[in-house]
């Protein structure tokens, strides 16, 4: 195929212990480490491997968000992407607006394959890929753990609750990456230098004329209900009797 498009979202790093702001207006993101959404790193790694196998010619990465997302796009270029597009807007959009913006990029770029993450680990929405596929009227293969190509179609193994499903989709298609699809490579210093010269185009979101979508209002943020710290037992006998006390044995 000619081109693969990969979505990279800038999110709070998965190692950060996220805290809710005291006034309930959001979560603390000030001064917190930001990274490429882990599933998107996997999506990009897969695209790069497909290209390295000679099954694709170009890998284009796209992020929708503030200018800060350039950092994550540079990292993506250092991993090996050929070109980056930043769709600029004050903050990352809701999934439907995001999917609509991605659709505009898809119309410009005409990729045979779009690989997104299965979910962004900030809002945990898991919607964008499915929505893009719907709006584009193309197949979706979500939660992918294996991808193989055969001419104009792809065979995708999907991780589902009951085990694995295998489906076949005609290209172009949208695939969303699950954790076990691959293990992303580490970026090497010389690649970071080289990435500085790769093209990074900026497009204001407004220029894509995405219609307004009925946003879901976020009214209040709170910490999850805490579980009370329980008891410690010394040995197996203590455990068995504690379970009996609770009526669990």
């Amino acid at each position, binding site marked *: 195929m000619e081109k693969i498009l990969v979505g990279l979202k800038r999110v*709070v790093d*998965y190692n950060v*212990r*996220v*805290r*809710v702001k005291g006034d309930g207006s959001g*979560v603390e993101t000030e001064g917190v480490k930001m990274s490429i959404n882990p599933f998107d790193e996997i999506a990009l790694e897969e695209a790069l491997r497909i290209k390295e196998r000679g099954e694709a010619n170009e890998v284009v990465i796209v992020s929708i968000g503030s200018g800060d997302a350039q950092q994550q796009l540079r990292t993506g270029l250092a991993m090996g992407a050929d070109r980056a597009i930043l769709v600029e807007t004050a903050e990352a959009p809701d999934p*439907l607006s995001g999917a609509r913006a991605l659709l505009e990029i898809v119309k410009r770029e005409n990729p045979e394959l779009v690989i997104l993450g299965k979910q962004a*680990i900030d809002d*945990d*929405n*898991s*919607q964008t*890929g*499915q929505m893009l*596929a*719907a*709006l584009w009227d193309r*197949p*979706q*293969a*979500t*939660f992918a*753990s294996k991808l193989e190509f055969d001419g104009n179609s792809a*065979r995708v193994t*999907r991780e*589902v*609750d*009951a*085990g*694995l*499903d*295998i*489906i*076949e989709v*005609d290209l172009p298609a949208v695939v969303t990456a*699950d*954790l076990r699809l691959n293990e992303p490579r580490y970026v090497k210093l010389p690649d970071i230098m080289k990435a500085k010269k790769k093209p990074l185009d900026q497009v204001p979101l407004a220029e894509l004329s995405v219609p307004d*979508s*009925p946003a*879901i*209002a976020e*009214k*209040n*943020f*709170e*910490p*999850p209900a805490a*579980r009370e*710290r*329980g*008891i*410690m037992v*010394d040995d*197996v006998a203590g*455990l*068995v009797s504690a*379970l009996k006390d*609770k009526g*669990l044995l």
Partner: protein
Amino acid sequence: MAKVLLIAEHDGTSLNPNTAKCIACAAQIPGAEIDVAVFAETAGDIAAEAATLDSVARVLSSEGEAYRGALAAVLAPQIVKLADGYEYIFGPSTTFGKDLMPRVAALLGVNQISDLMSVEGERTFKRPIYAGSAVVTVEVPGGVPVIATVRTASFRAVAGGNSAPVEALDLAAEMPDHTRFIASETGKSDRPDLQSASRVVAGGRALGSEENFDLIYKLADRLEAGIGASRAAVDAGYVPNEMQIGQTGRIIAPDLYIAIGISGAIQHLTGIKDAGTIVAINKDEEAPIFEVADIGLVGDLFSVVPELTEALN
């Protein structure tokens, strides 16, 4: 009256227990009138099962070969055909619902609420974000349908005993042929299903090998428990992926959960926080799992677990 369309999940022969939990969620909407839609190759038995569930007004059933494998690209246009007049369209927050519902939402031009965990009002709900590190209260604007996936671990299944009418649907949405179901590889097991088991025993990276996981199986057999695992254990190949519990695995709410050699990463904890009693066995007294455990035991699993299995004899 608030009309709810609820998409049933099934395995081709019987209804998935998550459906009854989604119904419990929908029933909390003020004035809810709940229709359950069943799309299946052969829908009869599944629809009949859905009709027995409390709070169900009608079961709508649609049959066809194209429904094999529950492909979102096939189902979503059918649901959109049905959607007119429904104020709410709900599905479970399982891989089935997560795959399907956003496709429906996009075709209807609305956003979706993912992992709805509580109903706070007609259009106000709560949902977890950041792997459960925060809970956000969300409100859907008026004039558009509320599309949601329901975090089933947050709800107790409705009872049976109902006999709702079943109506056959005659839908005519075009069936796409760009997506084809090939096969399912599901681990056949006689053990209780992880998601509905009242007891679950889970092992982590500390087990060290597929063979050593036998310790977990033996304890689970003694307790008639379902079996789970951390992502680390799945990634290491000790057990298949369907056993993974957590943010990117299954979300469970058993009465008893026993975590063995699992450190308690936030991504794991989000999958078990609704468990009745959490037991942790870990050799590191500083392991974060002890912060959420109701009963903790510091010790080497390789001696503690066989001893516990023996003690339950």
